[in-house]
Every structure is written in structure tokens, then in C-alpha cells.
């Protein structure tokens, strides 16, 4: 880490190699596909190497890197903000009443369904569920109201559940409705 602060290229590469695959997993959650995720990953690391002097050692270093990465992803989303998700919000999803067996679903499957979400839903879901932001923080960061954040989260959940049920139904033919 000290080497990175001094701008040592070898140390920077080492840091990248140690953390990149974890960080790509973070970026993937926020992106539509792998290409977009790798773009964000690249921007994130450039930012990390520029800002590394600002890291004061409070909290874990990996936690700091992850925060920079998440912020980069959010920033990138805001830059590409399209009117698309406004349309999606109006789509009604019924809350599925059935439960399902999650044991059969791997991380890759969950990643797939998250990436299928509309951009706005994906942001709110990631920020609230995985990163632990409050609705207030999410509202401020994304420029939406606290209520909108809440409703988008519950819609996101509903969509995800439905998608997962579909997936299980196709994969195992055990889905009974």
C-alpha cells in the first residue's frame, strides 16, 4: 500500500491483482453486462491510484477500495441516466406468493437476474441490500425521493423473485406454481 502511495507501478499492479476479481464482482452487480462492468472497474482503479494518498487508514483498505468502486459505479450510472427506468417503474409486478429453494442458485444465477433489472432498480437494490445504504442516502445519491427509493426496492425484489422462480422452473422442473 505504501508503494502504491508513492506511485510505484509494480506495487500498483500487485494491488490490482489481489483485489481486481473481487472488485469486478462488485462492478458486475451494478452493470448490465461484463463489458460495462470492466469499464467501471478500469475507471475505479484509475481513481484509486489517484486518490490513494487520501486513504488515512481508517477502516479496512479493501473496504475503502470497495467504496471507491461503488461510487464509481454509481457515478457512471448517473452519467448514463436514461429515461428508460421511468418506463419500467410503471410496470406492475405481482408479489409472488410462493417460496423457493435458494440452495440450488449460485452467485452466477443471482448475478444474471440482477443484471436483468432496469438500471434504476438495480442501483437501489444493490445500494440498499448489499452495500447497506439507507433509503435517505440512496435518495440523495441518485437524486430521487426517499419514497421512490423504497418503492423501487420492493419492485426490484418482486421482479427478482419472479425471475428466480422462472429460472428454477426451467432448470429443475420442480416449480409447482
Amino acid at each position, binding site marked *: 500500500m505504501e508503494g502504491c502511495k508513492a506511485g510505484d*507501478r509494480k506495487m*500498483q*499492479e500487485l494491488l*490490482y*491483482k489481489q483485489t*481486481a*476479481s*473481487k472488485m*469486478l*464482482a*462488485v462492478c*458486475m*452487480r451494478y452493470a448490465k453486462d461484463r463489458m460495462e462492468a*470492466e469499464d467501471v*472497474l*478500469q475507471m475505479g*482503479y*484509475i481513481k484509486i*491510484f489517484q486518490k490513494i494518498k487520501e486513504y488515512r487508514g481508517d477502516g479496512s483498505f479493501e473496504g475503502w477500495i470497495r467504496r471507491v468502486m461503488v461510487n464509481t459505479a454509481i457515478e457512471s450510472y448517473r452519467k448514463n441516466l436514461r429515461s428508460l427506468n421511468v418506463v419500467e417503474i410503471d410496470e406492475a409486478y405481482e408479489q*409472488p*406468493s*410462493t*417460496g*423457493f*429453494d*435458494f440452495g440450488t*442458485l*449460485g*452467485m452466477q444465477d*443471482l*448475478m444474471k437476474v*440482477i443484471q436483468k433489472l432496469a438500471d434504476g432498480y438495480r442501483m437501489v437494490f444493490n445500494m440498499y*441490500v*448489499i452495500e447497506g445504504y439507507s433509503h435517505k442516502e440512496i435518495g440523495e445519491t441518485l437524486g430521487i425521493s426517499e419514497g421512490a427509493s423504497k418503492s423501487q426496492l*420492493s419492485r426490484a*425484489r418482486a421482479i*427478482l*423473485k419472479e425471475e428466480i422462480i422462472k429460472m428454477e422452473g426451467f432448470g429443475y422442473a420442480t416449480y409447482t406454481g
Partner: protein
Amino acid sequence: MQPIQDKDFDQLFKNAFEDAEITPSRDLWSNIESEIEPKKKRILPIYWLSAAAVLLIATIGFLVYQQQEVKPKQFANNVEPKTIKPIIETTQVGDSVKALGVVIEKTEQVSPSNSKPAVALAKSSVKEAVKSTQNQKAITAPEMQKQETIIAKVEEPKQEIIKRKIEEAIQQPKEETVIAANLGSVKADDVSGDYGQSENKGIRNVGDVVNLIVNKVDKRKDKFIQFRTDDDDSSLSSINIGPFKIGKKNRK
């Protein structure tokens, strides 16, 4: 199967992504590396350029100020002896020829550019100076052409002296120019042959004006700033401030 609680549902995702790892493409690091590299390189020249620009503007401003004070004196010197001593008059003409020669030396090396801030500064105050020079030219033009060739060779020592005088009068803002005066004399030989042709060019634009001033003060081969005026508009051809040099001469 029981309907799943939101809390459990969320926890499921959380656990799944907790230690998730996805290996990035192999060439991603080299992309990042190349993004970091050029930025560092780019930053340095920007600092240099801005520093050079400030220095340049300050220097030109100073020179223009000096020029304003010096010019009227020269003019007075040249005019006075004319009426009193006919013999001296010819030498004076020689002087003015010489001065013009210097002017022309400039126009030869001029080139195109955007240094408008500097030019704008120089513009107004220099115009007066230019007028006085042009007046001299009008008076002495016929004689000048006759004597030109002779003077160019014979008067060389004198030119040296006059150069020095001008320099002293201006109080040399830079040591370099004094040291470089010798270089300047070498250069003068090359240029003397051009006097005739370049004479027609005169002063057509701001680039010429700036060149005129610079040539007066900076006798080095690489002037600290030069404009190219071959075309209708002038543009920067070279800059030379100590270690910092830009030159487009090769394109000529």
C-alpha cells in the same frame, strides 16, 4: 414452500455476493496502466506552457514599455545632426538603414500564430514606434538604396556599436541577450544580403511589429519569440526562453 421474507431474501443475495470473485480480462491491467502513464506525462508540459506564457507576456510588456521610452530619443538624435552637419547625415542614414535592416531581419523569420494576448499588449504601444521608423524610411529611402550595399559592408563595426547603444539604452532585461550579441553579429552577415528584398515587405501586421521589438532586444539566433508573416496573417514560429524552446523553423 413458504413465502420468503424480505429480510431473508436480502440476506441470501448478501451472502452470495459477500466473497464473490470474477476474474477480469487479461488485458485490463495494461489498459489501466496506459491510462495512468500518459496523464502524468501530460501534466508536466501544461505547467511548463503556462509558466512560459506568463513569462512571455511579462517580458513583452516590459520590452514594449522600454521601447516607448527609447524610440523618441533615437528619433531626436537622428534628426538633429541632419541640419547641422551634412557629413554626419549620411552616417545617420546608414543608421536608419541599419535599423530597417534589423526590422527586416525579423520579417524574414516570421511565422503564424495565436499568441494574441502578447500581441494585443504590444499592438497599441508599438504602433507609435513603428510610425517613427516609417517616417525615417520615407526621408531616406532614395539615398538608402544607393548606399545600401556599401553601408552594409562598411558600416559593420558601426552597426555593432549602435546595437550596443540600443541595448544599453534599453537596459537589457536579460543577460543572455548581451552574451548573445556576438552570435547576433555572425547572423548579421547572413542577413545583410537580404536587405534589398525584405525592404519591400515593411510592416504589414502585428507579427512584424512583435518581431521588430524582439529583434531589437534579442540578438540571439533563436529569438525568444518569433512570428512568421509570409502569409497574410502572422503566426508564431518559435519561442526560446532559456531551456524552453519551441520552433517551427523546419517547416519553412
